[in-house]
């Protein structure tokens, strides 16, 4: 799966060079057995009443992609 040409160019000119010179450092390891947000996939969602209705309306809606979403098209592979 290859990324688009513009992104590959970005990677070449910006990221790869930056990463080459990025200093290496270590961080303290997470204590064993401790629970933190990184350890979990977010829970499911329960909705009631009008909030539940919002989801149903979205599902049956005929929304079209916004201009903002369309502006991201150059980065679609």
């Amino acid at each position, binding site marked *: 799966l290859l990324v688009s040409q513009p992104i590959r160019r970005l*990677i*070449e000119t910006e990221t790869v060079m930056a990463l080459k010179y990025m200093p290496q450092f270590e961080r303290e390891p*997470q204590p064993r057995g401790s629970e933190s947000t990184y350890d979990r996939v977010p829970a499911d969602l329960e909705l009631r009443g009008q909030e539940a209705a919002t989801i149903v309306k979205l*599902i049956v809606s005929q929304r079209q*992609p916004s201009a903002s979403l369309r502006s991201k098209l150059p980065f679609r592979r």
Partner: protein
Amino acid sequence: VTDPEVPPAVIEPLRSDHDVEGFRNRESSIEEFLRHRAWRNDQQNLSRSYVCRSAEVPPPPILGYHSIAMGRIALTDLPKEIQPLELDLKHLPVAILARIGRHEVAPKQIGDVLMWDVFRRVSEAANRIGCVGILLHAINRPKLIDWYKGWDFVTVGHVAKEPEERQAMFLELSLIKKALELPPE
């Protein structure tokens, strides 16, 4: 790869030899999930993680990643005006975008590349097993929530006010498919 002068970048399933230790993100939950949990989740079939990496610098640095899983939205006390839709409205299957993040020095467009990849993988999964959209629980930072809104995600449920709260957001499958079918600009 058509142009040998340009280093290729790939999005691929997380492997045990990916350089997760070198991944840096300002949000510890994004960074630590990749470093400590993502591979284990893959082994236990709890979620799937995909990394975007450059192929040119050894070891290939991870430019960004996303993790997706299956989940559901439970609906109760639906108002009467919804009932005539005659759908099975008690539990809706969704894809959960559990994590998405780019390396702190990667260009922000890497996030856009990753989200398109999420769209494509969720659409393909929906074709095979069915789901009604993507649910995520966003870190409560205005810029981040605006970025999701730029992808047409809609905030749902409790409105997060505190920094440590998460904001639930949803994007329906029909819009994802329309976006994937848009002609290239």
